[in-house]
């Protein structure tokens, strides 16, 4: 039985002018760590808000734990945990006060579910008398996660939990999610960081309110249709321009210190391109075949 089911969900803003979500359907299995991957403005937050009953969809049906997000919103609110993208705890309350407050609101106590949050809470416990507003970004996220978990939710919705958090804290955060998954909690997480996609069991790539692809990260990568090459040279800007003029090139995009490119016809293309670039006075040109990343797949699917 799927814990989260969406079918043909639509959401518009400004009286239908802006289509934020267009006919989105997918489902998340019980105990799954599911990632919603897409850039800012793709519709991730709208989907999360529909699933957490905060917004009404303009079309389609969705259910969480088998309860309808429109009709049974009160039941869903008792069961799920939600962590919005923006830090949304009481900044003028201390760490402990925040946690106690949310525990009481959910008719439970810190002691009752301490075991679930222990690993996370231990890290912020030394600061339990500090006001939440004075915590660092990573600490805030940990506290927010504790507050979202305090009532032992069946499904956990995390909207961009790692945005604005440093690399170490991000890594720690994902490790915490893996441990939570072992406790049997279904986790739906969204992120604009493509590298985090690999840490999910299944992902949905979303762009402009439409799902591009849903699969395990590995299968999405396997589904990349062409051989991908990485190229590096001395004048990267010039190289990108010149490569795009090369007739056999299908796509070429800048990727950190490399450009990633695919050819229309792979046969001998690598060699031809090298010669072509040499004629244009490019030096130290390196080309190598690589395995695509999720980001490559995303860009390819966008086109």
């Amino acid at each position, binding site marked *: 039985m799927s814990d989260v089911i969406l079918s043909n969900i639509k959401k518009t803003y400004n009286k239908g002018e802006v289509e934020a979500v267009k006919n989105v359907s997918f489902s998340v299995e019980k105990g799954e760590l599911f990632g919603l991957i897409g850039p800012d403005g793709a519709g991730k937050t709208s989907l999360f*808000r529909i699933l957490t009953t*905060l917004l009404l969809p303009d079309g389609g049906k969705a259910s969480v734990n088998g309860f309808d997000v429109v009709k049974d919103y009160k039941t869903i*609110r*008792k069961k799920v945990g939600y*962590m919005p993208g923006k830090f949304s705890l*009481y900044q003028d309350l201390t760490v402990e006060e925040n946690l106690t*407050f949310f525990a009481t*609101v959910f008719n439970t106590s810190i002691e009752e579910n301490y075991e679930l949050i222990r690993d996370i809470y231990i890290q912020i416990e030394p600061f339990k008398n500090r006001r939440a507003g004075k915590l660092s970004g990573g600490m805030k996220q940990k506290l927010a996660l504790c507050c979202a978990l305090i009532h032992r939710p069946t499904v956990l919705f995390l909207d961009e939990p790692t945005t604005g958090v440093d690399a170490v804290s991000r890594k720690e955060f994902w490790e915490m999610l893996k441990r939570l998954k072992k406790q049997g909690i279904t986790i739906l997480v969204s992120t604009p960081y493509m590298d985090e996609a690999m840490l999910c069991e299944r992902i949905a790539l979303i762009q402009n309110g439409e799902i591009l692809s849903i699969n395990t990260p590995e299968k999405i990568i396997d589904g990349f249709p062409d051989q991908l090459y990485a190229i590096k040279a001395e004048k990267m800007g010039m190289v990108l321009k010149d490569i795009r003029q090369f007739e056999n090139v299908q796509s070429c995009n800048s990727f950190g210190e490399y450009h990633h490119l695919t050819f229309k016809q792979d046969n001998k293309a690598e060699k031809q391109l090298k010669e072509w670039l040499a004629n244009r006075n490019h030096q130290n040109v390196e080309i190598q075949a690589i395995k695509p990343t999720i980001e490559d797949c995303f860009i390819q699917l966008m086109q």
Partner: protein
Amino acid sequence: MKQFLAFVRKEFYHVFRDRKTLLLLFGMPIAQIILFGFALTNEIKNTKIVICDNSNDIATRAIIDKLEVSKNFEIEQVFLNNNEIEETFKKGKVKLVIVFPPNFNHSLNHENKAQVQIIADASDPNTANTLTMYATSIIGDYHKELMAGRKIPLQIETEMRMIYNPELKGATNFVPGVMALVLFLVSVLMTSVSIVREKESGTMEVLLVSPFNAVLVVISKAIPYFFLSIINLIVILVLSVTLLDMTIKGSVILLFLESALLIITALSLGLLISNSTASQQTAMIISLMGMLLPTVLFTGFMFPLENMPLVLQVISNIIPAKWYYIIVKSIMIKGLGFSAIWKETLILMGMTLFLLIVSIKKFKVRLS
């Protein structure tokens, strides 16, 4: 219940940890009551008045002496005819003219009655009213002394004329009005930002995805502010009594209970504003600009309601502070009991109930 207490405790934390706002909440009423109290005082000193003594006899001189002794007046004695009197008023320096007719003493002794005319510039009704009162009471004083040794009743008829504003209506005491204004505005302002603040900071988003109860959330917001307002009320009353020499003639307990009722009315209105707006700024503009003017205009302590067009008089009925003003005047100045103000109390209760129900109904269980 446990949930409710958690909410209330949280609200108290919010209030007491925001030191600047707290200071403002207590500073504002104190500043206002002192400012209003002294600025709006209606005691008048050293006003220039003109006396036209057409009689110049023992009686008129005795009265003029008495007027001169009083600190309120600076006297100038000239003979003026009616046109000249009006000219003096138009120049604006003279606020009051007292005219004794010829043969004042003679008429007093032989006809047992004499007349004196007091003409006041009523373009400022409150000043005119006060000055006339002063003058009348001084003449009355003389009259009493005169009566002491006589058997036949004597009569001095003071004829008052208010020019420029014959329909003179003036407030005699501003404290009840200032109380109504300050208590009402501060209470509305405080709560009007309370719920919308959670919307703005995003905490409402988290709170909504929980088994909360809208009624508890809304009411718990008002509780800390209720206590703050009661403290404000005590401060205002103490200041009024000590600094502004106001006396409370009626029951202090009744005054407190009625004030508590007004505070709850104002808090409910604040909650309604908070539930209906999307940003703290809007909420504050509505509660400050939107409430200040109608409250000042329609409470009746600055501008008499009886003089307003009927439409405005009808509108004034929806201003809670108006009813509270009537209640406070009745208790503080007239010393009346509950039987005299039950109607106003009932109206305030009705308003409170209505505002509370609407604001709870307006509470959005979803975003946008």
